[in-house]
């Protein structure tokens, strides 16, 4: 025994030289705080300490040359490391790992740990802070979300199972002796400094004897929630609350005055504050917070002081529902006396970590029920097929004899989950009403089993079904949003009380209403009052996008170019045209819808970008030349693609596996899979089914393109949609609906996909973002693939889809065209686009994906690499729609022809011929209006652009 403790002391001494990070000299406040946090994280609880492995003892498992660096074991995606620990006795242990990220960009990173007992993915918690000095206040006096900055501190954290809903460290059950652990596949390169083995010890219970009340009347210590020092995720952010309960508050400008709960809700997300104590003593803790999303169910935080959870009570501390109000909650004992902790004089840290541990059993149980409900739903469909006859009675108990018992069993489970929630929350969990409804549905079905086949909408199909209600609820329950206004440490008997009187509230509302007409509230508004020395840019995007653009531009563009840029949020694109008529238009616009550049250029309102010498080389380097086709007017190019969409096949791996269907490569494959899908009341989604009335050209044209057809004759004098190729495409596009029964109207593919009613379909970027970030229950169950196409004679599959999305333009009446181009060129450059994408995601969360049209930049963005490959390949199949003065007529003629065939039963040839006639007449009329044709004779040549032509222009330019 003695020799062992000696050994521990020896190890400690030894590693102290090698593994303790060297503190750099502190330069400013935040840096001091960060170093302080870094140091206190690496402090080890001596009672629990068992063993420390320094990186020097790591063995490289793959490539030896790159792994060891002067101050850590360098682990990259392709390398692996292993180490041995000597366990003195059988028992439960935690592992703590100290590491630094060797990457300037991290987002939800992890690595895999494996040992004799198993393998799992462990979270690698990040360490972000805010770049406070940098443009904290915008030109209107509003505080804006500060840029998150990645710190370079060494992070010490427990090895924690990423898939677990609990934030607690993973418990390793290890036997006495030597164990070897392997670390590999970190999602970004990390340098590992040390791994510490700690004994699992129970947390001490709080007892009031250890903290006698000390009333010395010192001022309470107030920590503002928004003044955090460290956060584990970049997008945990401060926000503005206009509530009159919040500190600080001002009516005239927007202050960041709370820590936003909606950005801080996932298990393991942690925020750290520091504070100074002048008078040592026992301090109580109270929180001013708001929890407005889970009525009747408290959210959970683990509260640690100086890196340690001091008492059992601080672990999984519950914050009850408050509604929209901010309320004060004091950590207290059952009799209401505040619990106190001892704080020495000096600097301290407090951290709060989101955790869903109290609910994890309930969530896992409900998830299991959802899976079983879906399975039985498919089982029943296998029996009944695609039968929609509501009057038919099924003897379902003959096929599934125990169905009633199973349903009742699930209902019992759901009800006991409800009771468990009730016990945790000690109030009626109002938000859990879904559970009761689901169990009532199931009991109802159990009582009348013969109705189950016709009532699948109550079981597992559709938005009101038991399965959907349960899975929606589990998603809600696993999120723990908590907004913090301030944390107060007090040494008096009771926490200081702040009350807001009724008149204060009324006055605050009146004041903020009046103020909304002035100053900061009018930020980024479109205005006719334009200073001469600023470049005016209107942006058709929400304010978060514009604020960040302004900030990046002010820092990255204005200093080096000397051009000041002012961004305004465009409320309505029509305003571009109207402002141009009145001469109050900006110099440039970004985020413009695709049809606008052509329409305005045709009428002479835009500047030809090929006038700038470096325009074509710039585009040729980083963009798809195809993306310029929509901006081509008379040998000029009047816009540049800013973002790019993609139409790809999205499919549910689980459903296709179950139905034994391959991923469709061609439309023939789609036709083949349709009967199988329909047998299970499932369907396929085509983008045109999302549009009720007019089917936009970008949903119809790809069918023609894939069949080798063009939309217009090369001279632009007539349409080319009556060719044989076009007819083939048009027939395909209609018979998918008329013969193969693809859904004609499907307003919501996203939810149909989630509920596996449409397990496969073609959808675009916005659906991709929603599925990635707003459908956690099917995460990893779906994937994307190239759009289905047509098998060509050469043997490859032609998969054309449209990709153009939003554009940037420069106005012809601008006085600052060169500056505008200089700005746009800077803005669309590779590094700025990557930087912008990362800034948006870092600030507002991973769902702020940026689909830049700069292909070189896109390949560096934070998309899953397999998906990126698919998207980039689909972009090589991008085929844009050339614009034409009568383009709107072509669009509606094809759409009308589709309606005639699909809904009125007309034959394809006749419908298409009629469409051709209508379009051709309009083409002649429009070309006359724009002076291409006069008195029936062509006086000016019109040319439909092709990518070859643009390529020729590029070559000429070089």
């Amino acid at each position, binding site marked *: 025994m003695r020799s062992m403790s000696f050994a521990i002391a020896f190890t400690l001494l030894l590693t102290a030289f090698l593994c303790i990070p060297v503190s750099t000299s502190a330069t400013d406040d935040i840096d001091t705080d960060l170093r302080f946090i870094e140091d206190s994280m690496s402090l080890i609880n001596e009672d629990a300490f068992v063993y420390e492995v320094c990186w020097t003892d790591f063995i490289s498992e793959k490539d030896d040359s790159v792994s060891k660096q002067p101050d850590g074991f360098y682990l990259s995606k392709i390398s692996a490391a292993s180490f041995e620990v000597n366990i003195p006795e059988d028992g439960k242990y935690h592992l703590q790992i100290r590491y630094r990220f060797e990457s300037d960009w991290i987002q939800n990173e992890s690595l895999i740990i494996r040992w004799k007992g198993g393998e799992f993915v462990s979270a690698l918690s990040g360490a972000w802070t805010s770049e406070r000095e940098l443009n904290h206040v915008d030109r209107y006096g509003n505080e804006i979300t500060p840029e998150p900055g990645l710190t370079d501190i060494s992070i010490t954290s427990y090895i924690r199972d990423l898939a677990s809903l609990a934030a607690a460290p993973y418990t390793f059950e290890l036997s006495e002796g030597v164990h070897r652990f392997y670390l590999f596949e970190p999602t970004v390169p990390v340098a590992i400094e040390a791994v510490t083995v700690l004994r699992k010890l129970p947390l001490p219970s709080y007892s009031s004897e250890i903290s006698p009340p000390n009333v010395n009347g010192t001022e309470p210590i107030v920590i503002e929630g928004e003044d955090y020092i460290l956060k584990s995720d970049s997008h945990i952010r401060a926000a503005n609350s206009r509530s009159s309960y919040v500190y600080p508050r001002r009516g005239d400008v927007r202050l960041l005055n709370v820590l936003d709960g909606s950005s801080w809700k996932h298990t393991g997300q942690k925020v750290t504050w520091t504070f100074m104590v002048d008078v040592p003593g026992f301090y109580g803790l109270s929180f001013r917070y708001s929890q407005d999303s889970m009525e009747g169910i408290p959210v959970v935080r683990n509260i640690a002081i100086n890196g340690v959870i001091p008492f059992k009570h601080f672990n999984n501390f519950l914050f009850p529902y408050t509604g929209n109000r901010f309320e004060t909650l004091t950590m207290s004992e059952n009799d209401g006396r505040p619990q106190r902790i001892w704080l020495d004089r000096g600097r301290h840290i407090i951290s709060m970590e989101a955790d869903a541990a109290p609910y994890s059993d309930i969530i896992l149980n409900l998830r299991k029920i959802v899976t079983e409900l879906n399975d039985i739903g498919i089982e029943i469909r296998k029996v009944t097929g695609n039968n929609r006859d*509501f009057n038919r009675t099924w003897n379902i108990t003959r096929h599934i004899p125990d169905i009633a018992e199973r349903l009742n069993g699930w209902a019992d489970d759901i009800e006991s989950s409800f009771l468990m929630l009730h016990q945790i929350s000690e109030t009626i969990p109002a938000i859990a009403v879904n559970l009761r409804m689901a169990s009532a549905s199931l009991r109802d079905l159990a009582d009348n089993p013969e109705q189950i086949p016709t009532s699948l909408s109550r079981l597992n199909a559709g938005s009101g079904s038991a399965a959907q209600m349960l899975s929606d609820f589990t998603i809600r329950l696993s999120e723990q949003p908590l907004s913090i206004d301030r944390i107060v440490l007090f040494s008096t008997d009771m926490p200081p009380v702040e009350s807001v009187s009724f008149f204060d509230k009324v006055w605050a509302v009146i004041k903020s209403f009046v103020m909304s007409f002035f100053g900061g509230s009018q930020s980024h508004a479109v205005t006719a009052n334009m200073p001469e020395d600023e470049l005016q840019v209107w942006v058709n995007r929400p304010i978060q996008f514009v604020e960040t653009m302004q900030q990046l531009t002010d820092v990255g563009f204005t200093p080096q170019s000397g051009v000041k840029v002012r961004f305004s949020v465009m409320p309505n694109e029509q305003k571009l045209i109207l402002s141009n008529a009145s001469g109050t238009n900006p110099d440039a616009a970004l985020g413009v819808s695709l049809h606008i550049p052509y329409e305005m250029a045709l009428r002479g309102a835009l500047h030809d970008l090929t006038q700038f010498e470096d325009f074509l080389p710039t585009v040729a380097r980083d963009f798809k030349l195809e993306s310029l086709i929509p901006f081509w007017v008379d040998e000029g190019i009047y816009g540049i693609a800013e973002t790019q969409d993609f139409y790809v096949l999205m499919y549910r791996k689980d459903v296709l596996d179950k139905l034994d269907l391959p991923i469709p490569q061609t439309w023939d494959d789609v036709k083949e899979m349709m009967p199988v899908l329909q047998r299970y009341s499932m369907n396929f989604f085509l983008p045109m089914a999302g*549009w009720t009335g007019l089917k936009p050209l970008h949903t119809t044209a790809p069918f023609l393109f894939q069949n080798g057809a063009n939309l217009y004759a090369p001279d632009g004098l007539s349409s080319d949609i009556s060719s044989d190729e076009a007819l083939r495409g048009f027939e395909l596009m209609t018979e998918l609906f008329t013969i193969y029964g693809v*859904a004609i109207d499907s307003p919501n593919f996203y939810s149909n996909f989630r509920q596996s009613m449409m397990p496969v379909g073609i959808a675009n970027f916005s659906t991709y973002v929603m599925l990635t970030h707003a459908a956690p229950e099917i995460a990893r169950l779906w994937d994307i693939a190239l759009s289905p196409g047509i098998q060509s004679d050469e043997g490859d599959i032609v998969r054309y889809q449209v990709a153009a999305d939003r554009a940037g333009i420069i106005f012809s009446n601008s006085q600052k065209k060169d500056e505008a181009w200089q700005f746009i060129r800077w803005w669309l450059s590779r590094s700025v686009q990557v930087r912008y994408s990362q800034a948006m995601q870092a600030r507002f969360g991973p769902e702020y994906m940026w689909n830049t049209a700069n292909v070189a930049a896109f390949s560096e963005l934070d998309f899953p690499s397999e998906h990126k490959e698919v998207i980039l390949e689909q972009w090589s199949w991008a085929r844009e729609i050339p614009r034409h003065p009568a383009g709107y007529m072509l669009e509606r003629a094809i759409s*009308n022809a589709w309606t005639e065939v699909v809904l009125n039963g007309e034959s394809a040839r006749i419908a298409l011929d009629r469409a051709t006639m209508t379009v051709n007449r309009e083409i002649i*009329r429009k070309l006359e209006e724009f002076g291409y044709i006069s008195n029936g004779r062509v006086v000016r040549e019109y040319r439909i652009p092709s990518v070859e032509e643009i390529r020729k222009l590029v070559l000429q330019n070089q």
Partner: protein
Amino acid sequence: MKDILKFVNGKSHWIMLSPYLLLFTVFIVLPIISAVGLSFTQFDTIQFPRFVGMQNYIRLLTLDSVFMQHVLPNTIEYALIVGPGGYILSFVLAWILAQVTKVNRTILAIIIYSPSLTAGVIMTAVWRVIFSGDQMGYFNSVLMRMNLIAEPVQWLQSPAHLMTLIMIIALWSSMGVGFLAMLAGILNVNEELYEAAYIDGVRNRFQEVIYVTIPSMKPQMLFGAVMSIVATFSTGGIGVALSGSNPTPLYSGQVIVNHIEDYGFIRFEMGYAAALSVVLLFIIWGASKVAWSLFSDS
């Protein structure tokens, strides 16, 4: 001093009128004049308008097949059914309401009046869900449950159904200000007139309505008629909101207002759109004339 007094006494009505005149000129007269002016030009909202004489009107009558084949028939069908239909419905409902007690009447009047207030908002939110073309649409679901149809019907896309749907919704929301005016008119009819009429030989309620109620409330009837005419011709949002696009599929729900928007904001031919608005102005003016001759006192 005397001159000022004389001026004030003689011309003060102009001073009193000036706010109205100013607003009327700025917001009604000037736009109409400029619309008429623009209708003789070719104007693409960006370049300066070019004078083309009567060309827009000639084109409207001779070349615009969509207008002649779809828009005009739709507009007339819509106006004939929704205009008089809504008007008669307003009167009937107002008359029925006039028979019940005050509290019930007020409540029912609010209920009947509210669709005309909320129509625009409710339309997309409620009607599109009800008539959605998949089996999730309420109407499809009910019909399929009752075994009346086997496959979901494309209510919002199919040219065969769209116009009917538009008219039903328009009738539903047609109990507007005209309805309230008529209700007030019916309630204001002098009771003694009814008694006198019964002495003169009126035998039933129908005769009472024809011989007493309607003649006594001619001003309200006229007001209701004019409001209903203006409303039917100048509302066109329903078809576009239901089908989600302008133009509606196969122009099946296209009325003249949609046609104006199509030319003005999709094809950017403001001159032609102005000519269409002038035509619409004349149609409304003519229809109001008919209403005047039916209901005016003189």
